[in-house]
């Protein structure tokens, strides 16, 4: 099969790395070649962060370029807008409705665009929007918003749901398994 590309975007500190770790593990189990590229260091301090997940028969490049992503999983609305050009035409954007103001907006030097997701909906993309933070809180903790978003993405990945449940079970700390599975289910149903 040709290489599939998934972009995970958000704000440094939102927990984007766990989602990519789980995906990578799952695609390896399915027998694919996999590359996952992460950002560490300075950008993690509240900056815009991106993780690239690529899988297929043979993957060379670790990064995804404009117009190449099959799916974008976004933890925050403004980041959905920022990374939109990386999506293939007709691709899937799974976006949390969460809004986090960047410093230029806090300082009044720039405006946070209004109705971002409504404007994206008019484009040639398939938009799935959900309040991942709220769903995570109802699962037990804001920390599992990443698993809610993963749950929402799984419907588009064509891999058996039980497989993901096994991967979550074997990866997250034992004490948090039930909360994470609940979060996964809430995202899957969203």
């Amino acid at each position: 099969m040709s290489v599939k590309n998934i972009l995970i975007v958000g704000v440094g500190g939102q927990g984007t790395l766990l989602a990519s770790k789980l995906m990578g593990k799952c695609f390896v189990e399915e027998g694919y070649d996999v590359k996952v590229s992460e950002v560490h260091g300075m950008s993690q301090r509240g900056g815009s962060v991106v993780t690239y997940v690529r899988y297929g028969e043979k993957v060379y490049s670790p990064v995804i370029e404009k117009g190449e992503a099959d799916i974008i999983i976004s933890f925050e609305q403004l980041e959905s807008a920022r990374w939109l050009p990386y999506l293939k035409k007709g691709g899937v954007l799974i976006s949390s409705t969460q809004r986090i103001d960047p410093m230029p907006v806090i300082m009044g030097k720039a405006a946070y665009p209004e109705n971002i997701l409504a404007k994206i909906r008019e484009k040639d993309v398939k938009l799935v929007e959900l309040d991942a933070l709220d769903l995570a809180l109802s699962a037990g903790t804001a920390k599992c918003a990443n698993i809610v978003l993963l749950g929402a993405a799984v419907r588009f990945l064509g891999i058996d749901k039980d497989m993901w449940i096994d991967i979550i079970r074997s990866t997250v700390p034992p004490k948090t398994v039930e909360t994470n599975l609940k979060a996964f289910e809430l995202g899957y149903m969203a």
Partner: protein
Amino acid sequence: MKKALILGNEAVARGLWEAGVNVVSSYPGTPSTEITEFVSKYDDIYSEWAPNEKVAFEVAFGAATGGARSFCAMKHVGLNVAADPLYTASYIGVNGGMVCAVADDPGMHSSQNEQDSRHHAIASKTPMLEPSDSAECCAFAKIAFDLSERFNTPFLLRLSTRVSHARSLVELCDRKEIGVKEYKKDVMKNVMMPAMARGAHVRVEERLLALTDFADGEAVLAGINTVEYNEKKIGIIAAGTSFVYAREALGTKASYLKLGMVNPLPVKLIKDFAKEVDEVIVVEELDDIIETHCIKLGIKVKGKELFSRLGEFSQATVKAALTNEKADFVSFDEDIPARPPVLCAGCPHRGLYYALKGMGLYVSGDIGCYTLGAQAPLSMMDSCVCMGASVSGLHGFNVARGSEQAKKSVAVIGDSTFIHSGITGLIDIAYNKGFSTVIVLDNSITGMTGHQNNPANGLTIKGDPTVSVNLEALARAVGFNNVRVVDPFDIEVTKATVKEELAKEEPSLIISRRPCALLKTVRHSAPVVVDEEKCIGCKACLNVGCPALSQTKRESGKYLAVIDKTQCVGCGVCASACKFDAIGKGE
């Protein structure tokens, strides 16, 4: 055989373990840090954080002289610090094998410059391998030790952000126990004085010729340098990340000479490849090192006329230069505000900077999380060069501009950076009767690189208790009579202390001490609360630049301060900024 999806950095650590490495010493630096963090999890390897890269290199080289397989890791600019031992270690050679990993950062995700560390390999006449994915990180790390011992030289392993921080599949093997070789005193080999070094230089030049032969022949058999013939209209020569981008972009429409050994470069291999293809294109991020080598060999190539010397490449860079393919995508039609990294909510550096604000100071800055204070709204930095330059640079600035200027200038430097190379600057100030005021931002951790212990926090790389550098006593010992300690969350006391020390015509050291807000051992207060009766929406609190604090429109139509409770840790710096007492402690 077990396969694992691991970071390039973890794969290097795995390779070291499998190669039977005994000793590892490093200083953290993005994107190299995780190598040594992963190494520290292996009980059969001695590992440590050194105060800086020069020390780390010398520890590793000393261990190699003593017969152990040894290793050190650093970022590209770290190799500048370690360049002094590198250039002479190259002359001396090894007993046990030694490898030094150096991680470049094209695109400067987390660095102050974009230098190409291949220049150091060439200048120090040290061989260098360059992996392109995690499997090669592990394999090349292992091969490098065999070659280091065989060719009697330290080896460099060049990484880059997209190799170090990308996960791909690695086959895991067992550890090969090598043990520590015998040490025999050998003055001619190990003591570099002019008489010995003249002979050593002859051996180094001979070694380079032998390594070139290796690159042309055995390196191909060993899978280090590889040739892939497909369509022969275009022949790509590339290494590391540039190879994977080119291979992704062009597939079988081009042929490839992939160089796993980037110093010395092969000669015959390149000439033979060039004969087979119609046109040779060199794809390389940063400088034109392979291209220049080809030109010296009299081969017609295209390189930098097609590709930039700036930033990171990708498959799109190669497609844009060599194909007619254009990306098809949709965009958001409005301006999207930038999201620069910021000091975290509750960061102790914010308090210190806020205290300094409005004093009209020249602030000589340094490398770390606190460099983020250079940005608006804090805007509290006038210069930032390299590790330690804040202290020595301030002294120079004050010498040039006189003692009145010294009353209006400070240096800011983190605890780890101070240990790395701030101490020598401090000695320079005291010894030369300077009058500068240096502020050490002691947050008990090496922060920006992701929380590594350091000599000032009393914990080893494995988290075991150890001695810690007493910064106060150290400053006094080098001749600073004025040493003060402040809590940066106490804005008024901090401000007053800085003013007092600046007024003195003597050098002063102020330690702004409070642990990093992200440390698990730090207990946080409840989020602060805004009293909407008192808040008039003046925006003064926004000047502290806290990501947990903004303004929202209330029902009354007024814009008032609002606290993001998921981020706020109740540090209270914003409360100090409010003249109307509208921000108070939460419960």
